[in-house]
């Protein structure tokens, strides 16, 4: 069994290309730009772009993993975590250079990476679970991607850290909202993984 489903090659490459484009936009952004647009270069534009895109990649990962190979639940969960991590590693060089250019301290950078991983894993688990629950492809597509966009956009206006926009903005600035977002997704992941492994263990034990 290959380590990666061929259905994931293009999503990974597309993810890297889009993050690379966002990185190029941030690097090429002129210093003379109006102050209101300044954060594109020196602000959290790139982590925001990664958060936006990793949600889509993670849904693809979750779906592609369903039915790919025969793995027990713990191994499958580890693969989901590994594949989300692999996506982040692909764009890590961009994030590292951007960290230097924006002067982001290492602790905040690590917290943002942690958030991106936890957020990506949550959507990978959602994508993986959705295939089992919703069998009609059209409805699943609408539910998955509509849900992803709703989570990104709707709470952002109210500054709720369930949306990656205020959460990453908070971690970038070192304010409370960011830490709440990180904690929220960490707890969500732990809860979802725990419930999945527990129910799976019960069913296989029976």
């Amino acid at each position, binding site marked *: 069994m*290959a380590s990666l489903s061929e259905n*994931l090659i293009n999503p*990974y490459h597309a993810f890297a290309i889009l993050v690379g484009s966002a990185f*190029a936009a941030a*690097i*090429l952004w002129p210093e003379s730009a109006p102050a209101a647009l300044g*954060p594109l270069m020196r602000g959290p534009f790139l982590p925001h772009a990664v958060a936006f895109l990793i949600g889509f990649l993670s849904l693809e990962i979750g779906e592609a993993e369903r039915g790919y190979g025969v793995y027990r639940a713990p191994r499958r969960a580890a693969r989901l975590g590994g594949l989300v991590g692999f996506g982040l590693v692909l764009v890590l060089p961009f994030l590292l250079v951007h960290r230097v250019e*924006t002067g982001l301290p290492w602790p905040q950078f690590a917290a943002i990476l942690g958030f991106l991983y936890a957020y990506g894993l949550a959507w990978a688990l959602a994508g993986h679970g959705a295939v089992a629950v919703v069998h009609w492809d059209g409805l699943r597509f609408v539910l998955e991607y509509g849900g992803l966009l709703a989570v990104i956009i709707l709470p952002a206006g109210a500054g709720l850290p369930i949306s990656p926009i205020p959460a990453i903005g908070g971690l970038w600035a070192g304010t409370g909202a960011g830490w709440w977002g990180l904690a929220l997704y960490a707890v969500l992941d732990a809860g979802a993984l725990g419930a999945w492994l527990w129910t799976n263990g019960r069913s296989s034990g029976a």
Partner: protein
Amino acid sequence: MTWVGWAVLCVVAVAQPGWAEVWVGGELGWQGQAVLGAVNPLTITVTNGTSSVLSATLRVEQRVGSGWRGEGMQRLRAPLLLAPGGRAQFAFPWPVEAGSAPAVVVEADGTELARATLPLRLMAEKPIATVGSVAAYPDGGPTIALAPEDLPEDPFLFSPFSEVRLTRGAVVSAPVAEALAAWVAFGGGLVRNGETPTVIPSLSAMDLDDAVARHGPRPPPRGLLIGGTVLYLIALGLALPPLSRRGRPWGIAALISAALTFALFYPVFFGSPQTTTLILYSLSTRDVSRFSADTLVVVPVRGGIQEVSGWWVERVSPGSERSGMDIEWVWGAEGPRTLVAMNPGKTLVLWGYGRAWSTGGTRHVVGSVAVDAGFAPLLAAVGPVAREGDLVYTERIAERQGGVARYEYRLRWEPDG
């Protein structure tokens, strides 16, 4: 109220530790009249009515600005040590903007001992200060009559006046005369019947904008980064497919390792741009021996709090407004310090009076020697009053501490003869 009610109130009053024993009061502005847009004296009187030494913190807070153009908090924190039964009066330079009335609190160990809200009585026009015995008040505008001993030794506190008139026989002390000279020399206002130094115009906003552009963070190596990004993405297109064909992941491992190595060593080769730029312009003149006119430009790339030594207030150019950022003045072991909140992309210009720079530096004769372009704002200020043959001494310091790049430009002008 019945006698029972009074008795309960008295018992409660006595039971409150410190209640009515420490008293605080004061006023904002000269004689309680604050001039809008100027730095006014904030006079605070604290009385310790207790039988023990008062070791406390004096705290002042005022919200300035408005919701639509940005609100900011002005705060002051100063340690307070007062003997039993003692009374002390302090005057602080306080920039006055429309906003809430300043609240003054004396607190010790988190317990509030006394509180007062100072009335905010604003006047738009700067008054004329007449010092000494006044035979007749001058025409044309409001007037404030002061005794010579009322005059401050801090030039900041003359800011609310348009003019200071010393009447015949009014003798001011040497420190007050120095403060007056600094106030006049650096464009604060006029003094009549006293020594009048040459007035040097303040640094122009346009020159400061140019200075900000000149001292910005280094640009990223764009060509290298964009070229590297394109190559990395092309290589990724070749290295990813073998992962789905049971191939060994050596290609992708090598590619990611190379990219990560470059990213990790990137700051070693290209350095890291500063996250905050501080540019200090200090202007001294032979006419003023104690004070210099200082301008500090704070250019933040990231948000946060910047702490600088000395008492600084935000400089507001005519026709513009304060940035609405929080500012706090605190006392440390080495005197007052100013803490300003920074908003990325929002340049903050502060001004204040520093210690005159009177010795050292590189000597130049006006009209013959060119100096570093970084001195442009200072030279432009001195330019209108300098004559050929005058001496100009300059000193430039550039240092980097973590993410903060600090540039200091000091210039002393000594007129010929």
